């Protein structure tokens, strides 16, 4: 069976876009719970990046010899340790965040126009939030130290994309400006892209204000604008997010996403 590029899901498209962000030889943390970034990172590994060091369920491994991925969905599951080349004690992450990952994927209850994001909660008063979030997990520290990171959300609406986050758990480009991270005294390359089910956004070079980068097939610029709670920079020409190649789709479906989580 061969897949044709004409038929793919938005999740497969997003996974493929994410796969192109991985560089060979890097350390890459694979968040078990997020199917799309997980599939994207594994796709990069299988097709272009045989030397990435995958951080997975608190182990390091390399999976290029795995013909098909058995499913794993959780951080704590012991079953993926069967692939381990090394065990990581969880507290070691704090000894050297860059030994866990060179890049990272960060989600958010809220994301603002400078790519700051919020996993703490929504509301004006921390002691009486209208919606209490799960917490930052390790995103604050990882996003601080990594070479660059990616924002990823599973829906695109005005509750998520807000002018100003109620709370910031992960700094993107702070108050804006290319030197905004430097002014805060923090290293790292900050967020590069924000990937949503409608589009990909990047950050304008000088202001670091979020900008539309590409729209997914079938999505209009207008749709993105209407579902974003801040003024997005819209270039004169907005391309379509590149479709997966046949090989990418085939690899996703036949080696990585056997259970079809991205096809639902």
């Amino acid at each position, binding site marked *: 069976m061969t897949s044709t590029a004409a038929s793919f899901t938005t999740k497969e498209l997003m996974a493929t876009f994410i796969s192109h962000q991985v560089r060979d030889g890097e350390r890459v943390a694979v968040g078990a*719970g997020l199917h799309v970034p997980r599939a994207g990172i594994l796709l990069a590994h299988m097709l272009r990046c045989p030397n990435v060091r995958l951080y997975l369920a608190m182990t390091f491994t390399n999976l290029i010899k795995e013909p098909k991925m058995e499913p794993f969905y959780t951080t704590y599951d012991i079953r993926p340790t069967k692939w381990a080349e090394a*065990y990581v004690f969880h*507290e070691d992450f704090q000894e050297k965040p860059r030994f866990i990952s060179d890049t990272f994927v960060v989600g958010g209850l809220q994301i603002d126009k400078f790519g700051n994001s919020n996993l703490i909660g929504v509301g004006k008063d921390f002691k*009486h939030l209208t919606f209490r979030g799960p917490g930052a997990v390790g995103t604050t520290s990882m996003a601080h130290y990594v070479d660059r990171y990616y924002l990823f959300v599973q829906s695109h609406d005005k509750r998520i994309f807000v002018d100003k986050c109620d709370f910031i758990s992960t700094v993107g480009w702070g108050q804006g400006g290319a030197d905004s991270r430097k002014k805060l005294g923090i290293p790292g390359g900050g967020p590069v892209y924000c990937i949503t089910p409608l589009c990909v956004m990047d950050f304008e070079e000088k202001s670091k204000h979020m900008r539309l980068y590409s729209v997914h097939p079938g999505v209009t610029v207008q749709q993105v604008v209407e579902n974003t709670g801040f003024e997005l920079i819209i270039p004169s020409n907005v391309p379509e997010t590149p479709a997966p190649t046949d090989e990418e789709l085939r690899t996703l479906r036949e080696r990585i996403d056997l259970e079809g989580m991205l096809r639902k």
Partner: protein
Amino acid sequence: MISERKSLVIDESTAGGMIRDGMTIAIGGFINSSHPMVLVRQIIQRGIKNLTVVGAASGGPDLDLLIAAGCIKKLVTTYMGAEHFCPITPFFRTAAQRGELEIFECDEGMFYCALRAAAQGLPSTPWKAGLGTSFPEVNPEIKVYSDPITGEPVLAIPAIVPDLAIIYAAHSDAYGNVQHIGTGFGDRAMWRAAKRTIAQVERVIPNEEVRKNPLATSLYGVDAVLRAPYGAHPFAGPGYYIEDGIHIREFIAAGNAYAKNNDRRPFEEYLQKYILSPKTHEDYLEVVGIRRLVSLHEH
């Protein structure tokens, strides 16, 4: 003239008796794995209150259960969810939204800073990540200051010293040499930070077994050992059983009834059935049933 080495193995009730109102307790494991549930149930059965609980770096429904039972005054946590079972645990969310729970808000980096400071006998340790975020605002215990050498801004994360760490592991010998199967998550950091540690284990193994692989000894010296087969249930016991998804969903559903409809009855039923009625861990296992327990294999 030589006396023998003294066994550190204690029973469930003695172990439970080491936990007191108002203590700071660190609870090992990670999300849906490796929580010392016999001791967690002891806390509830004994009606222990006003605990400061240092949950695992990423917490889970074990902590939600303690919140539901009213044992926790203050929670140190970076994440309160159950991954695919539940994105945010319901009792935590409700208590936090109502302002009923003190929260030491932090991320995993800051979390280990606080434990490391405790282990090192330091008042605080520095961390860079968090500058420019809301953490120093929502957690006033965290201070921004200037590094004394370079002058650059840094966060000071205060030491959190658990009076007691309760840790689940696969094995220990009778002398408190503990060996995990799998990575052991952040359990070592809790053990180092705490004044005392109880290890709750699946099996007490001979000292000779420990000596066969000294590199596997994860905690070299705990203060007490509690043997409890299936003792992490309903969570995973790495190397022995996976988590009991049916049971965890039952608890989460009870929580959602409370969070969404303010209906505590399903939780009260859960509490009665699994925690208050069973007098011992063996009673609990009987309620769960051996068929369920043996179905939780890993392959």
